[in-house]
């Protein structure tokens, strides 16, 4: 089992519904986000390309945040999801410094918080909140170990990229381009 997310940048309109859904579902304090939208403009006028995408923790295969954590609060499940146990976290900030995606933040209560791929929803057989609300259905979620899953098929058939692969983290959120 290897959970992964696939996001179609050609379908994303940058509406931020995923951001709001996450904040609501996970009770994210005001002024913080576990996911966010970026807008990249490439090229010189008049031939300009616009890319919109929803970003979050990449639940890396080689997660530097898990490696750097001095207490083991940051850990990775067998299905690939990287989680933080709040009452093992000392708030030292090592994981935040080690993340090339700046996907983590210090919760006002002191511990470090981040995207969980809505682990609590997966256990109930539901999709992550951001995926389930996307109005353009540009987000897909599933198991990469299953060659017939929707995400495996998309990655097999479509051109895709990951963010900052040169950082060596083996990110598991894929972007269709």
């Amino acid at each position, binding site marked *: 089992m290897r959970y992964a997310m696939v996001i179609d940048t050609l379908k994303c309109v940058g509406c931020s519904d995923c951001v709001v859904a996450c904040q609501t579902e996970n009770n994210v304090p005001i002024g913080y986000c576990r996911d966010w939208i970026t807008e990249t403009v490439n090229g*010189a006028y008049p031939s300009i390309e616009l890319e919109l995408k929803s970003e979050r923790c990449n639940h890396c295969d080689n997660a*530097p945040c898990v490696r750097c954590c001095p*207490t083991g609060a940051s850990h990775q499940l067998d299905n690939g999801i990287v989680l933080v146990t709040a009452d093992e976290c000392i708030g030292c900030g090592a994981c935040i*410094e080690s993340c090339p995606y700046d996907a983590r933040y210090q919760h006002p209560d002191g511990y470090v918080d981040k995207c969980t791929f809505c682990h609590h929803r997966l256990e109930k057989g539901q999709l992550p909140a951001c995926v389930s609300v996307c109005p353009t259905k540009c987000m897909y979620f599933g198991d990469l170990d299953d060659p017939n899953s929707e995400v495996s098929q998309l990655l097999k058939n479509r051109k895709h990229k990951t963010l900052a692969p040169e950082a060596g983290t083996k990110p598991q959120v894929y972007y269709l381009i």
Partner: protein
Amino acid sequence: MQEELFTSGRNIPNIDPSLQIWHWPISVYLFLGGLAAGLLFFAALITVLKKDKEYPAAVKFASIVSPIALTLGLLALFYDLTHKLYFWRLYTTIRIESPMSWGAWVLLIITPISFLWVFSYYTELFPKWKLKFNFLNTFEKFLQENRMNMAIALIPLSIVLGIYTGILLSAFNARPLWNNAILGPLFLTSGLSTGAATIILLAKNAKERHLFSKIDLALIVIELGLIIHMLMGMYAGSEVQLEAMQLLVGGEFTLMFFGFVIILGLIVPAILELTELIGYKVPVAVPAILILIGGLVFRFVMVEAGQITRYLY
């Protein structure tokens, strides 16, 4: 064709402006930890070599500084934690992959030893203040008998402490300025150099001062070499490393780095120490204090500049 690229959209009020989550306590701790490592290393080395009668400042007077430095450093670290009440979680596990974990364990061992070390010299350091309880005198005797054992333990422990302050930063591959293998040896050398400078500052006889001036001179040369290696390595590196280097060479940290760390913190004290060794009269406090300030500024520059550098995608 001119290519334009901009990324926008990520604007999370409480996260993005405070991306630099490590502040002055971390820089101060890295300096104090290195200083204590240097002082304990020299005290232990001289004891193991059985030269402790000839070099009293190194084993006795300067070693008072190390428990103070470690205590202040630990307080600074604790101050910087945001989930403070859970700090004990550090000691429920040993994580080999995390430099911070084995740093925490080394600190847990070396801090009490640094106190015991000073206590073993209590009667010599404070002859006027007699110990009120007899068992404390017995304990001091016991420590004096075991001073050699403490010294043997301190040599590897102080090296690990000194090198860990650098490896702590170099383990973060997301910050290209830190992510180079030379940072560990560089911080160790800098820590030993600040330790030697403190001993020079507190030494009362010329023989001891001269020995540590020579040691310090050698350490400064090594440190300059390591800094050149670090810059060369990044200069020949990938785009992100090049950008990281440019913060120090030509960027916003140039004055701090070249002015305060390299020129005032390394080259000027080296020249002053050399002229003193040749026989000219130079107040020894000047190079020693310059080295200490240079070491502190170096930690600040590395911690602050490192957090600006990142992967762009």
